[in-house]
């Protein structure tokens, strides 16, 4: 009972009296989706619908020397051709938009893009950043950060692990690609987008097309995934609008094909690091040194906050380098820089624990004083260990039998928006596939369940501690 009549009682009702919490709930749109009746923007059909297609750069870095659309315009069934790039323009990544076409069928639209004659002067490019030594002038070091006396700490340590870790660029890869259907008639636009931003995309379009925002009518029923990458109207949205106008206001549907989707519709930056970590026999971490780098395309990559969560390690030396590559740009994704930081830090701590012949959970708990909220994390680690039956299931490396595929458990700690609430900071216990000797990969939460291919790709980029 509340202490005073003015204090409300916030206690949850007993479990058996709850109507929502703890009860299975059916998704309202479940029947529409599972019967195939749900209409996504990419399913849009209407009389007179035209199909749009993009011609994109086949080169990672090139200058357009000439562009000739006359053959494409003559093709029967083509209603509009619009050039995006012009002679003299420098294209900075493969997949960058060069021209757009609208036609009566998808097949003719794609034929027409192939009829556009573009001459390119191919320029030097960089598309891979996994070897920093090859990045040359495309690498932009941020400057060294030093805390304490890392050299002395490494000398005095009981164990030191030096290792390279890397997590490549991944793409959002929404199953419904980016795109929209659009109708631009007079000063009104009807837009059928695949967007996470139904309420804002009209304004984006109106600013770019110079038509009043109230004249943009946006309709969307379902979206086939966005994952942070579907917010703006995008160049292809504007192109579809222009093609519609140039085709007498007929609706144009322009969705990216899969290769283009993967090249230009967003990615999450990579994170690579050469890490040196030191500790005492009891598992206390004493020093951290990292040379890290990342890319998110032409603009370089963000700097992952390492050492992650355990940022109180007393002796540190850190160098981060952003690498600009000739690849499509980064877009918003879940917990920016945190996955990379978590991976780069916690795999190193796992490797240190292995070198010290300690249970990694012991090492994580031992060092909670180096985190901003030791008590919260301790309780969470203990609860997680109990739920996953850590004491029973965890085993030291090299003790999972013969064969090249190993299975084991790992631990990592993630935090997101933890400044606002401690509840959102949580450890992750990981059923971990070990590949060859000792390669740990984080299988993350947040709806990114890994496919076997994803895991294989990740694993193949991983070098193991020995």
């Amino acid at each position, binding site marked *: 009972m509340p202490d005073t009549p003015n204090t409300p009682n916030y206690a949850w009702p007993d479990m058996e009296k709850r109507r929502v919490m703890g009860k299975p709930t059916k998704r309202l749109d479940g029947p529409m989706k599972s*019967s195939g009746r749900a209409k996504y923007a990419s399913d849009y059909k209407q009389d007179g619908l035209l199909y749009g*297609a993009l011609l994109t750069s086949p080169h990672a870095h090139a200058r357009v020397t000439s562009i000739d659309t006359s053959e494409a315009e003559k093709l029967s069934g083509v209603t509009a051709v619009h050039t995006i790039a012009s002679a003299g323009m420098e294209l900075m990544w493969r997949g960058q938009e060069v021209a757009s076409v609208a036609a009566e069928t998808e097949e003719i639209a794609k034929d027409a893009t192939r009829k556009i004659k573009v001459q390119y002067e191919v320029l030097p490019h960089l598309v891979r950043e996994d070897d920093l030594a090859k990045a040359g002038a495309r690498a932009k070091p941020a400057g060294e950060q030093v805390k304490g006396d890392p050299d002395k700490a490494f000398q005095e340590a009981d164990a030191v692990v030096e290792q390279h870790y890397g997590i490549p660029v991944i793409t959002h890869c929404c199953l419904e690609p980016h795109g929209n259907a659009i109708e631009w008639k007079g000063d009104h636009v009807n837009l059928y987008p695949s967007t996470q931003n139904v309420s804002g995309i009209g304004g984006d379009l109106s600013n770019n097309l110079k038509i009043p925002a109230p004249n943009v009518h946006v309709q969307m029923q379902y979206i086939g995934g966005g994952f942070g990458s579907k917010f703006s109207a995008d160049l292809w949205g504007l192109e579809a609008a222009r093609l519609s106008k140039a085709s007498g206001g007929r609706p144009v549907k322009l969705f990216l094909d899969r290769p283009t989707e993967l090249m230009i519709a967003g990615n999450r930056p990579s994170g690579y690091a050469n890490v040196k970590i030191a500790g005492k026999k009891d598992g206390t971490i004493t020093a951290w040194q990292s040379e890290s780098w990342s890319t998110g395309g032409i603009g370089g990559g963000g700097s992952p906050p390492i050492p992650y969560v355990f940022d109180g390690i007393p002796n540190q030396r850190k160098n981060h380098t952003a690498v600009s590559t000739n690849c499509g740009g980064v877009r918003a994704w879940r917990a920016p820089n945190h996955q990379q930081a978590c991976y780069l830090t916690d795999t190193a701590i796992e490797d240190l624990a292995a070198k010290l012949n300690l249970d990694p959970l012991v090492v994580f708990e031992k060092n909670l004083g180096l985190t901003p909220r030791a008590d919260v994390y301790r309780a969470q680690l203990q609860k997680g260990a109990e739920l996953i039956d850590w004491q029973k299931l965890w085993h030291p490396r090299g003790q999972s039998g013969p064969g090249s595929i190993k299975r084991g458990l790992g631990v990592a700690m993630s935090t997101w928006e933890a400044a606002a609430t401690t509840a959102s900071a949580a450890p992750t216990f990981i059923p971990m596939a070990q590949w060859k000797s000792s390669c740990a990969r984080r299988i993350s939460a947040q709806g990114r369940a890994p496919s076997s291919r994803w895991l294989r790709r990740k694993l193949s980029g991983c070098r193991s501690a020995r």
Partner: protein
Amino acid sequence: MSSKKYPDAPEKPKNGFSRRGFIRGVGIGSGALGTVGLLVETPAEAAPAAGVAGPGEVPVTLQINGKPVKLNIEPRVTLVDALRNYLDFTGAKKVCDRATCGACTVIMDGKVVYSCTVLAIDAQGKDIQTIEGISQNGKLHPVSAAFVNHDAQQCGYCTPGFVMAVKGYLDKHPNPTYEDVQKGLGGNLCRCGTYVGVRKAVLEAAKEMKGGHNA
């Protein structure tokens, strides 16, 4: 599912349709595949022979969900494009357009196929079942219903393909175990990660369908 991924024996298609020939055909028609290196060297066009259709539109009749449907399309049009662009069967989705993800799955003559990798013209004379044809009298098919019961979907874009793959799988394997399901549905991808729900849904649907609820 097993039929397309693990054929009992490599058989030569009766209509002369071959994977290589198909890829060549699509290489002309699809920008999606145009980036694949092997397609760059398109062989010179052979002289038209008797029985060769196209390159212009040809009349095609497809048997979809038990009804004949006539349309005029170029021979290079894939079944998924015919269904989505030329008709209004938009349940099957075009996601990878290269027989990897299963979002375009339909059932053809009882076999589960990726409709992005079948030419519509080659689907003539076959019994094509799409997701639009499996609900009866406005009632969800047991597989679709099980997907709702187990929240086996999030954005839902892979779902129609998954439902068709599950139906085709259960038609041939009415008593699967959880492990069987994992393997048998390896040809469909879900980007949201609903696999656990899907597997539970398959087991429930198997039970329902055996109970005579499969219309």
